[in-house]
């Protein structure tokens, strides 16, 4: 596979996408009144294209910077487990990569909200719904950006 600097092309581009998502999440959230989980989406998408340990590295970096209390919160643990699980199961999924990608993005976001803050979601679903749709939209965008530059030949 082609290399950029010292890295494989995919990992290098993944690093760029991940750090862009990290800056967006920290610096520009909420965006237009919507809180978007940029980093979670970047990791879910990258889990489809990168090797398992590359995903683990990015996840740990995300946990290190985004963890917000001395203990690991439920959200942080789910944030770590979701992309890792996707990276493990992706080879066993039937269907085209684009279909699996879109499905996993939707399931990933819904799974994160379900396991981390279902109570808050049910209390304020109209507002939360907008954030979920925006997060899925960002996931689709980054997925197709990555998908379009893959060498499938």
């Amino acid at each position: 596979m082609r290399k950029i600097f010292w890295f494989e092309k995919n990992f290098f581009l993944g690093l760029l996408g991940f750090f862009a998502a990290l800056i967006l999440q920290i610096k520009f959230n909420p965006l237009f009144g919507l809180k978007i989980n940029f980093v979670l989406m970047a990791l879910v998408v990258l889990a489809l294209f990168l090797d398992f340990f590359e995903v683990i590295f990015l996840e740990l970096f995300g946990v290190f910077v985004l963890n917000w209390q001395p203990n690991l919160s439920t959200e942080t643990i789910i944030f770590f487990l979701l992309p890792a699980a996707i990276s493990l199961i992706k080879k066993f999924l039937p269907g085209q990569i684009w279909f699996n990608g879109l499905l996993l993005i939707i399931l990933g976001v819904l799974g994160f909200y379900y396991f981390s803050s279902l109570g808050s979601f049910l209390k304020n679903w109209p507002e939360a719904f907008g954030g979920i749709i925006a997060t899925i939209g960002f996931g689709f965008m980054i997925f197709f950006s990555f998908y379009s530059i893959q060498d499938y030949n």
Partner: protein
Amino acid sequence: MLLSLIIILIFLVFLKPDLGWKIRGFINRGLEGDVEGMNRLAAENENLKVQLVLLDQVKEQIPESSSGYISAFVFTYYPFSLKDKFLIDVGTNQQIKIGQPVVLPINKKLDSKNAEGILIGRISTVFDNSALVQTIFDKDWNLKVKIGKKGEPSLLKGGSTPKLTVINKEAKIADGDVVYNADPNFPFFYALGEAADPKFSSDQVFKEADLSFAYDLSRITIVYVLK
């Protein structure tokens, strides 16, 4: 190479979480100007409005507000959606307890007895040397408040745009009316913000309004925890 980095990151996540908070703080505030100063001015403005309201009311009948506080630095903010909390650098070792009010300070005179400022949240979880603050932007936050000089009662419901709800439909609420605490669990007459865009509720039974703020909560670096 990658495995070594993974091991280093595991070490950092568990043993040096504060380093991650500093990196986040740098990204969040690194290139900005005197946001803290602007927030302080906004808080001062809100407090002046409350003082004007106080002049029109019977101050003697109001319970005495807090007589002391602990100043704290903000470590980091909740990074995901649906909750609005932040971590401060004081905890059990500094006698912090769950439920204590947290205010955005007006001045930095740490020797003054009373903390003046805007009520922004309460302590929700306490660790040894840190504590989580649930803010009024958290969707699980509810608070009894009063609006304007006439002290129209209302229920503040938290969220990314906090709402003033169940206001009497006869009440005269105007844009810019100061909103202050009326909940006995917190000190009275601490400002929260200003009423904005008052209108009838969808069922026409009550009035409701938005709560507007002149400060940016996501850029705060210093808060007071009231004793």
